[in-house]
């Protein structure tokens, strides 16, 4: 394994939503037992619905927003001219801050010649810690109406950076934008979950490019497999992508999942499937890190 640590950090992503990221990451963490599950899908976190954790601890996440002292402001508009995000405006002899579009860069505070601007903390969401059997859970939750969950994701991953004795499973948001990039940044290995539709393939291709760009070792899990031809499988074969396993479309699994039940904790059949998947993933991570050194 990587020097100085004996755990692995696995990010689960998909491009398209609803392909089974949460199903895969929750069940892998559950069969791994002494594991950490981090829900980075902060806009719509669902892992906690499955794990139903005990001993919950909540902590707010803040960003810094400028606050103006209008007694000190002399209307020079230096801050307004500087702000690339148009988060400041000087209207009728008064400076206004539009906090929803502020990126918290701190530039206006730095530039104000009157020291009329200070920063205050604005809550944008929270991190909820909990325990489910032996799994530690960290859930990021963005407040509705807030634009970016990136600061929450950063804090979630920073918190677990020094963990070295537990495998970590990161449930990523859909898509391939900044929030996904942030979620996979420190991962040792990425699992891409695909579904057998042309939508699934199109979005698989995008995350495939993303993990390739960031030079992350990765493999694909084909979910909801049916008897018909599977465009996602064809894509993997064409591009010589490692297929870690296939999960068959199955009404029982769908039902368990819709009721937010952890399949591996309720049904022996799924326990066998996910235990073997976890073994395959571990083997892959070992191979990747061995070939790196």
């Amino acid at each position, binding site marked *: 394994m990587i020097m100085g640590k004996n755990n692995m950090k696995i990010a689960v992503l998909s491009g398209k939503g609803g392909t089974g990221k949460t199903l895969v990451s929750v069940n892998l963490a559950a069969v791994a037992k002494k594991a950490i599950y981090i829900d980075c899908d902060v806009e719509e976190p669902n892992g906690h619905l499955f794990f139903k954790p005990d001993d919950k601890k909540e902590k707010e996440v803040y960003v810094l927003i400028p606050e103006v002292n209008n007694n000190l402001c002399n209307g020079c508009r230096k801050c307004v001219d500087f702000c*690339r995000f148009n988060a400041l405006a000087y209207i009728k002899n008064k400076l206004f801050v539009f906090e929803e579009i502020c990126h918290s860069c701190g530039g206006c505070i730095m530039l104000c010649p009157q020291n009329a601007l200070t920063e205050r903390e604005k809550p944008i969401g929270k991190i909820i810690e909990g325990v489910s059997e032996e799994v530690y859970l960290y859930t990021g939750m963005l407040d509705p109406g807030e634009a970016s969950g990136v600061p929450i994701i950063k804090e979630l991953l920073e918190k677990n950076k020094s963990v070295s004795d537990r495998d970590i499973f990161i449930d990523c948001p859909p898509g391939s934008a900044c929030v996904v990039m942030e979620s996979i940044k420190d991962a040792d290995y990425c699992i891409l979950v695909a579904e057998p539709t042309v939508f699934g393939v199109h979005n698989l291709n995008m995350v495939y490019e993303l993990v390739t760009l960031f030079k992350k070792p990765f493999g694909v899990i084909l979910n909801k497999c049916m008897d018909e031809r599977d465009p996602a499988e064809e894509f993997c074969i064409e591009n010589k992508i490692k297929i870690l396993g296939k999960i068959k479309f199955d009404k029982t699994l769908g039902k368990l999942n819709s009721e937010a039940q952890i399949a591996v904790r309720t049904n022996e059949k799924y326990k066998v499937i996910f235990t073997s998947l976890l073994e395959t993933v571990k083997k892959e991570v070992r191979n990747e890190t061995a070939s790196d050194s």
Partner: protein
Amino acid sequence: MKQLLILSGKGGTGKTTIASAFIKFSDPEAYADCDVDAPNLHLVTRQGPVSNKKNYYGLERAEIDASKCISCDICRQNCRFDAIFSKETYKVNPFACEGCGVCEAICPANAITSKPAVDGELLLYKKEKSIFSTAQLKMGSGTSGLLVTEVKKQMKEAKSDAEFAIIDGSPGIGCPVIASLSGVDMVLIVAEPSLSGISDMKRIIITAEKFGIKTAVCINKFDINIKNTEKIKAFCKKEKISYMGEIPFDHDAVNAVNKGMTIADIDCAAGKAAKKVYEETEKLLFE
């Protein structure tokens, strides 16, 4: 222009499947795909040829001129996005840089400039009577909200006299969703009868309400879990949210999509149910 936006909170509930069916039923003069992160609508709607293709410039990115840099480290210390690193020379990580301009403003050697950067591609398709506006965000970009605004602007400019427009949205509740909400007349939320789907539906309803937009709900794959379907219906009734109907899980829907067709192009149970949902939605939108 009456604009109908289709959202879901949770991904994979069937936004695009339903949006594409609605487009087939109503043949609108304008439609758009605002899921710029993972656009799929173009795969199933038979749009005309590309009439305009252009680069989308999102935020600028800082660039350090190594010949002017005096390695004072001030830029790195003041960057809130950890975008500057020193590896022999000082460099900017373009994926982390948000183009705020702080480094440029404080560099004592004037070694930093902000430069425009391509963050994606905007596409406009034209047919005789209709236009389709879509885009693809570049990977890892942090400007999806801005691009969504561009997609909608392009749609409006290309067909300003359109009476009706259908917009396919993105999952989640963050910046691209918020950007897609501005100026629309109604949001149809495609819910899924799972506990995850219900939790996500509630979060997108709160978000849409914050922006004061009329919201309605329909349920896709309702027969996967009847108990949860009833829960959603009861929730809508209690919260006085208009309920537009339900669509069954249909294996034929997958086959249609894989052949590049909508569920409205083939004779199937999901297509028939979607028609009813469309009629209800149209009634509510134009009432």
